[in-house]
């Protein structure tokens, strides 16, 4: 488990801290599970303490299913009925040079969703050299300041 904090100097400017929160400035405390998602709370002033329970975290995502065919590559997310502000699909590839792909889905009302890997402009082949990791986020950047920002993660089976 990892804990991290940051102070918000401006809406687009976060200063990372090793511990604590600055009094008088908005700040965030986040707790990340190893290999799992994170749970983050935003505070206008530093709280004296924060207690996090297992039920505060989102359930893991179903392993994404990978497809390949003449049309290209695709990743299917199968978390039917779960809604997120965005999901990130991340994998490594060669084409022929190394590429680290990150594909954002945008808002998903239902995470039973197919993510197509875009074909390259010059028709170069894409060779996947890693599994696929997916991170989905809800209440990103504390759009609702009364709720936590949370992520759920999943990875393809090897």
């Amino acid at each position, binding site marked *: 488990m990892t804990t991290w904090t940051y102070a918000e100097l401006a809406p687009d400017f976060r200063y990372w801290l090793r511990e604590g929160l600055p009094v008088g400035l908005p700040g965030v405390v986040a707790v990340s599970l190893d290999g799992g998602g994170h749970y983050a709370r935003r505070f206008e002033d530093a709280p004296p303490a*924060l207690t996090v329970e*297992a039920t505060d975290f989102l359930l893991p995502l179903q392993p994404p299913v990978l497809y390949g065919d*003449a*049309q290209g590559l695709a990743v299917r997310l199968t978390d039917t009925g779960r809604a997120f502000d965005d999901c990130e699909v991340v994998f490594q590839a060669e084409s022929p040079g190394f590429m680290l792909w990150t594909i954002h889905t945008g808002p998903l009302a239902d995470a039973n969703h*197919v993510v*197509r890997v*875009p074909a390259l402009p010059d028709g170069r082949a894409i060779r996947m050299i890693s599994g696929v990791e997916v991170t989905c986020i809800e209440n990103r950047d504390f759009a609702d300041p009364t709720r936590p920002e949370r992520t759920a993660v999943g990875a393809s089976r090897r």
Partner: protein
Amino acid sequence: MHRCFVVISMAWLAGACADPDSPPALDAGVVDPPLRAVTVTVEARRLPMADVPVFTSTADGRFIAEGVTDAEGKVTLMGGATATALALDTRTAPIGDDDEVRLELTQIDPPVPSSTWAIDIATPPPPNLGLRLVTPCYRGSVDVPSVDSTSVTGEGCGRTETLGLVADGTLGDTHLARATSVAGAPARFETWHGIQPIEITAHVS
């Protein structure tokens, strides 16, 4: 006409393809938006990234158009459902309803340029074992020689309006101030906020 031939060499991936003749269909209701001019902005830590190849695609991944970002990190292309910045860290995101999309890369190449900021430390910080200036676009910091300094030069984005000033003290006694530079006037740091550690308890077994 661009064509794509996909190589899949990983055995585990082949095993994941339950039926290669039946690729997954797009979700019901996913309809490609009409072709129109879209603006793509590529940034890395809020710095505009010039000369980055960008292309647009349909919802099912077919290529539409390509271009290269200008000095402001922008390029206008015909799109499309998604845009992709083709760099070492290749990033794809859906094009918004406003026909714009911002692609945030993590790689900085070339490095963050050098900038000079005018500052005014109106109120000295409580601890003063070292002052550092921080900006949104650079994870490092720039040393500030003293509370009397009026100009600081180092790596960071000059176009940013909000700056942070960190005063290092003994462990657990760090203070932080912020200031906004308006119309080229010095960023004036007046109010310091102490950083207080908090106790975090997790029951996640």
